[in-house]
């Protein structure tokens, strides 16, 4: 894959970023790096969701896959002593298996729209309930931690949390891998087949597209990415709870961020991650440092950022359904087409 000059420059900047942060914001280096790592890991998960979401397969079940990835990897490490190098592939395989088990009947029976969303929502709840129910192993709703190996920096145990710089590069590599996968699918024939299927399934099937098979392919890739993302998140955070990495709110957050960023462009999900993470951080910090609000609401002021965040998301979906990046690109394309004086049919 050839990179354009601006992409090379951007990549160079990202690689240099930890040093720039150390130089300019040395005092709060760890905090900024943490924010960036979060953005990269979630961007990867969001990109994974968008790989199937862009074809009209709106799953609310991806909270299940991140949960299986995170818990699978940690439980295998804690109870079987299995290194995450083996644990993650096993957890991913389980997530893909679950995705195919749920996906096959869905696609075969042509379950789409509301039904697909609510069915996958049930999957998320099922996985979350299993995690809570197996509380002897998973710690129930209190969550659990991977057993720390030595000083917490280990290739064997895939633990890197103490070094923020190392974590940054791991997260960056993960994010880049996500973009490569996105690009790979975008260029494949499967993309055209799936786009046809998302417009009219019967017509696509009649020209010889195996719709079920094509959908299962992207579902498997998408679920695998979310499981890997969940596992890496767990390895970085060194703590997971059923509500932070599995469950309905994780699923909804994934969908929201992607919609806010833009579903149909490569960097849309990344944009969504930047937007949602920065927004919630800024709101959290502003609200916590405002004494007036603190005294007026007490500790429940902590929910004020979620309130504003939720309101903004609602406004986004109503007024900017193509997302931030999608809308910017659309405006740019319109201007270009006006200059060229050729009418471009909007999708």
């Amino acid at each position, binding site marked *: 894959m050839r990179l354009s000059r601006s992409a090379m420059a951007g990549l160079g900047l990202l690689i240099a970023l930890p040093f720039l942060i150390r130089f300019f914001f040395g005092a709060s280096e760890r905090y900024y790096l943490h924010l960036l790592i979060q953005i990269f890991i979630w961007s990867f998960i969001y990109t994974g969701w968008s790989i199937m979401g862009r074809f009209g397969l709106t799953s609310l079940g991806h909270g299940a896959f991140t949960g299986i990835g995170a818990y699978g990897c940690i439980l295998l490490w804690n109870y079987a002593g299995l290194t995450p190098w083996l644990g993650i592939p096993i957890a991913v395989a389980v997530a893909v298996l679950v995705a195919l088990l749920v996906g096959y009947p869905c696609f075969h029976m042509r379950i789409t729209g509301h*039904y697909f969303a609510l069915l996958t*929502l049930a999957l998320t709840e099922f996985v979350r309930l299993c995690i809570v129910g197996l509380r002897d192993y998973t710690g129930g709703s209190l969550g659990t931690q991977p057993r720390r190996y030595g000083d917490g920096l280990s290739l064997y145990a895939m633990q890197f949390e103490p070094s923020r710089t190392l974590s940054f590069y791991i997260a960056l590599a993960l994010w880049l891998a996500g973009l490569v996968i996105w690009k790979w699918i975008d260029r494949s024939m499967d993309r055209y087949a799936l786009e046809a299927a998302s417009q009219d399934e019967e017509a696509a099937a009649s020209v010889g597209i195996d719709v079920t098979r094509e959908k299962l392919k992207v579902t498997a890739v998408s679920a695998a990415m979310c499981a890997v993302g969940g596992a890496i998140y767990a390895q970085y955070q060194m703590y997971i709870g059923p509500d932070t990495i599995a469950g309905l709110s994780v699923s909804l957050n994934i969908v929201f961020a992607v919609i806010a960023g833009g579903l149909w462009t490569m960097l849309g999900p990344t944009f969504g991650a930047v937007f949602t993470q920065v927004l919630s951080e800024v709101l959290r910090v502003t609200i916590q440092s405002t004494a007036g609000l603190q005294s007026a609401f007490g500790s429940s002021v902590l929910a004020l950022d979620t309130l504003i965040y939720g309101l903004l998301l609602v406004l986004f979906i109503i007024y900017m359904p193509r997302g931030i990046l999608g809308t910017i690109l659309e405006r740019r394309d319109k201007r270009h087409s006006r200059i060229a004086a050729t009418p471009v049919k909007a999708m």
Partner: protein
Amino acid sequence: MECQLDIFFLEAVLNGLLLAGLLALLALGLNLIFGVIDVVWICYAELVMVGMYGINYAYKAGAPFLAAALFGVLLVALAGAILHQLVIRPVLDAAPINQLLVTGGMLFVLQAAATVAFGIDFKNLGIRLGSINVADMSFSYSRIITFGVASAAMLMLWLFLSRTYVGIAIRAIAQDRQIMPLMGVDHRNIYLVTSGIGGGLAGLGAALMVLQYDIYPQIGLQFGPLIFMICVLGGLGSMIGGFVAAFIISEFIAIGGSCFATEWGYAIAFLFFMVVIFIRPQGLFGGKA
């Protein structure tokens, strides 16, 4: 724990039956909105939560329980109408997924608003109605009242939908969205009325739930997924289907909960739901997929 066919098993079955009344009532409200407006309110259980806080507020302010309950019903009915007017109407012509997500966003908004306004601690009205003992089995009065009121409300809704002009217009819209405007029915008003009724049912659910459950901002997450599941299992838009599905699901929860642990009852119910939908995607009583 062993599961035996003894008196405790029978108790679990009957308690499941009593729970079904409440769940059927809530599923009915969601089903009505889906059938008529073709939108799923992901935040439906959060409206119930709003109602519970409203009732709690009115009751603690000194209102008698029945007045507080009426206040709750009206409050949520109003909230439903406002939700429709401000949030649903702008996206009525948008992609279905955006309609789903916009109410998902309201889920966060309502939950966070409740936390900011009331804090995260559990609240309850402090009403204890006691329980009745029949042959070693114990049933709380609040559950029995809930079942009775929910059944009565469903019967009244059925009468409303089948006997009054507005009710017939609502059912007609649900059957054919395109034709009804030509027949002189203003679908915008019908949508608003339906949202109000759907909200009112959530409010009634809230009035019944405050008798049994503690109030906290996340209570919606406990009931919400269950209610969707019941609606889909019965067939979205099918009211009788929702009723039957509510019984099936609550028996799973009650029996599973008494034999194993509570989560496993829920988990088995969700698993059962997925399997049934694979076999019958349109739900048990759904007409068309």
